[in-house]
């Protein structure tokens, strides 16, 4: 069966057809404001390019930045109530306490603290009060709020209270979109709660967006299941995506890095994704992006999502070049998607990084004669600045002096020299569509984070227990049991406590059962 990967970016929508390890077709169209018509156009073109009948498509995977952008632009967010199970603890800081005021206003401040939550070892802090939860549900209903976030202290350790409250709130507020924090994130109450609130606030947008993406696929005659890419590059089915839109937040950079790994055949490499305005540099470790360990800021909100550790610099194909002493300025301002009208090689008035790449002989696009007249010394100085910016960014991602390949992907990667910081630069075929290829790779994952008391349990037994739980989750997500491998396995002791408590996190990944 064939797989289709689609990346819906801010500027372009890319689509690829793959079968096993083979790439059969790649197309690129402009993203449309409604998303769906661009998606359909890309699907139809890519099917036609290899005359593939829609019924031979077994899987469609869509990567999109739609939900991240909704948060950043504060649009299409639903008013959301927050129910925190914590009393008597955690009264000192209310939900959304560290959010930007405009985002708080967009979501509203409907906060309820209730008894419940557990200690680090799973013991209840206080008993749940069903009457209290019902009263809160009635109040939420009376306020006309249809999105609810439920957070509970140490719910990643024990999620029973959150589930019970979820059931009570479904009864009290029929049809409400409810997100439980235990389904979203890791330890760190405020960060996990914030991610849960964002998720609930995006649920209505997710329903309509995912429905229209599915419609678009169906209207192209494709009847197979539709999946979305999540933060770690693995897949979730469309129904899960409707319920957990925040899990798509980092799918863009992840897909591009995973696509680069596939295209180059390298599992360990530095990936440089040069777009029109920015360059993202990250490290591949065993075929997956290395994850950031600090909190990740999304639209001004601290969250604790696992996101790729990507360093961005304001350099891209559309970066505007201005001469200055001692060195010319290149970026961060960019002509962006207007490159094909504004750049000199396309007959426009603006000197861009792409023009420098063409004048320097690195790239051959547009009309090279338009940059013939450029001062040779200026071109050399600009090329030097571009190389320095890229070399510094690559060096940040290096973790050892051992040679490591650098993989250039993205439409702007024509800026890349052949060697950078002493490292060889690879430009795999189809480099411009690495995003869509990353989406089409089709793997499913399972992740578990728990606290274990090592008094009567060995560290290995704790890790094994977490791994088994993660494997079960991966199979539920669609992975084929025989293909599952461990991608991350870590344990961090809970410092300052003499109980030998340790936090264990295991993630496994497997190929989708097609």
């Amino acid at each position, binding site marked *: 069966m064939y797989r289709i990967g689609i990346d819906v970016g801010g500027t372009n929508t890319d689509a690829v057809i793959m079968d096993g390890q083979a790439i059969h077709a790649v197309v690129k169209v402009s993203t449309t404001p409604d998303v769906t018509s661009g998606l359909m156009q890309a699907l139809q073109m890519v099917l036609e390019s290899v005359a593939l009948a829609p019924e031979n498509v077994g899987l469609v995977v869509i990567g999109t930045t739609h939900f991240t952008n909704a948060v950043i632009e504060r649009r299409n967010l639903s008013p959301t109530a927050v129910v925190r199970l*914590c009393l*008597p*603890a*955690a*009264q*000192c*800081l209310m939900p959304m306490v560290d959010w930007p005021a405009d985002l708080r206003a967009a979501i509203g401040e409907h906060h309820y603290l209730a008894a419940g939550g557990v200690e680090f070892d799973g013991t209840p802090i206080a008993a749940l009060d069903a009457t209290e939860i019902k009263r809160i549900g009635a109040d939420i209903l009376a306020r006309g709020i249809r999105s609810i976030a439920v957070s509970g202290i140490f719910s990643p350790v024990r999620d029973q209270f959150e589930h019970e409250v979820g059931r009570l709130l479904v009864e009290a507020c029929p049809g409400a979109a409810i997100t439980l924090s235990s389904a979203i994130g890791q*330890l760190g109450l*405020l960060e996990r709660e914030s991610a849960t609130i964002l998720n609930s606030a995006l649920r209505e947008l997710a329903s309509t967006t995912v429905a229209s993406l599915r419609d678009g696929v169906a209207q192209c005659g494709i009847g197979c299941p539709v999946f979305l890419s999540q933060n770690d590059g693995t897949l979730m089915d469309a129904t899960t995506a409707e319920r957990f839109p925040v899990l798509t937040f980092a799918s863009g950079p992840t897909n591009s890095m995973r696509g680069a790994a596939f295209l180059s055949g390298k599992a360990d490499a530095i990936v440089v994704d040069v777009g029109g305005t920015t360059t993202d540099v990250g490290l591949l470790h065993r075929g997956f992006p290395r994850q950031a360990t600090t909190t990740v800021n999304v639209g001004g909100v601290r969250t604790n999502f696992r996101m790729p550790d990507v360093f961005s610099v304001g350099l891209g194909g559309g970066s505007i070049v201005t001469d200055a002493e001692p060195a010319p300025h290149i970026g961060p301002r960019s002509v962006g998607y207007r490159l094909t009208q504004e750049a000199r090689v396309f007959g426009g008035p603006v000197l861009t990084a792409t023009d420098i790449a063409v004048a320097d002989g690195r790239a051959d696009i547009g009309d090279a004669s338009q940059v013939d007249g450029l001062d040779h010394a200026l071109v050399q100085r600009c090329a030097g600045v571009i190389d320095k910016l890229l070399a510094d960014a690559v060096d940040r991602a290096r973790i050892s002096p051992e040679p490591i390949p650098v993989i250039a992907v993205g439409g702007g990667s024509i800026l890349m020299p052949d060697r950078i910081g002493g490292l060889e630069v690879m430009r795999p075929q189809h480099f411009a569509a690495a995003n869509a290829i990353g989406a089409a790779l089709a793997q499913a994952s399972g992740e578990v984070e728990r606290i274990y008391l090592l008094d009567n349990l060995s560290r290995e037994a704790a890790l094994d227990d977490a791994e088994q739980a993660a494997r079960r989750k991966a199979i539920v997500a669609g992975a084929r049991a025989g293909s599952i491998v461990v991608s991350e396995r870590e344990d961090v002791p809970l*410092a300052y406590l003499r109980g030998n408590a340790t936090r264990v996190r295991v993630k496994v990944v497997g190929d989708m059962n097609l």
Partner: protein
Amino acid sequence: MRDLDESDIEALAIGAAILGTGGGGSPYIGELRCRRALREGKRIRLIALEELADDALVMSVAGIGAPTVSIEKLPEGGEGLRAVRALESYCGCTVDALIAAEIGGGNALEPMITAAEAGIPVVDADGMGRAFPEMQMCTFSIYGHRAAPAAIADEHGNIVLFQRTVSEHWFERLARSTVVTMGGSATGAEAPLSGRLAKQIAVPGTVTQAITLGNLVMAANRQHTSAISAICAQESGVHLVDAKIVDVKRHLLGGFSVGEILLEGMDAYAGTRAKVAFQNEFLTFERDGTVEACVPDLVVILDVDSGRAISTEMLRYGQRVAVLALPCHALLRTPAALAVVGPSAFGLEGIEYRPLSDGRAASNPSSMQIGKTP
């Protein structure tokens, strides 16, 4: 006496993390709580040690427990004040000011929150001048002031009073097991000390020191200059190396996160290989088999670009860091102090403490013998 505002609190959180030398827990929750208190119109006032009357009573307040718990089970809010009130009632006294037991990490903010509630000032001083893993590693204890009577309060309203403990180690043990029973995070208040004694045995000026460091880092970030060199200049510190972390080894030992990180020098330090050992806090910096800095001097690891502190829990392979050594206060360099907070107290056998040179230590008149190694 001066009022701290939100920008002081922001700077204090940054500076306290630096003085935390990798431990002490994140100041973030404490920073948010202080901001809330200020927005509610409460005042956070800072009083210098010398402004304190000799017969004034000062109580130290600290959060006790695991940082992993404190980012998840946030406090109810009144724990610190309940502990202080319980201890006041037992001792039959009224305290005039609060003081941090530990300026490094989250505990720098703890007395601020309680003092804002109680309407009393916080003393510009603390009991460590940095962070240490155990409560007896505090100048108050080192110089003979007993922690007990002490009180520990939790979010439920439970208050445990320690009437008497036969040693500071016993207090540490009993307090620790109490906190584990309370769910791994609680707030404690310790026996009041007089203004006269505080002036002798508290590490002076450390709140202002942390605020100054925080302001330096923020100014350097704004002006795109080096926070690292600004911190070294301010603290008479040594910039040991800029490096990438090439390995992090850690394990659990008796409730402590113990391990070491291996560093490979970069930029001007290319070719250097070095090692930092930690036990919750960073303990030693070693290059080519020579220990160049060790406890109680501060071994500080900062993000090489932003100058923000990196805690032992955040350490990971590939991070680009600057390692600094900052001289500790003379109160931590006496034989009495080194027995409790010197290298041998952390099981670092065979390492002799050699104080980092520091102009302030030499010029600081103190009744205690200073600057000598045992």
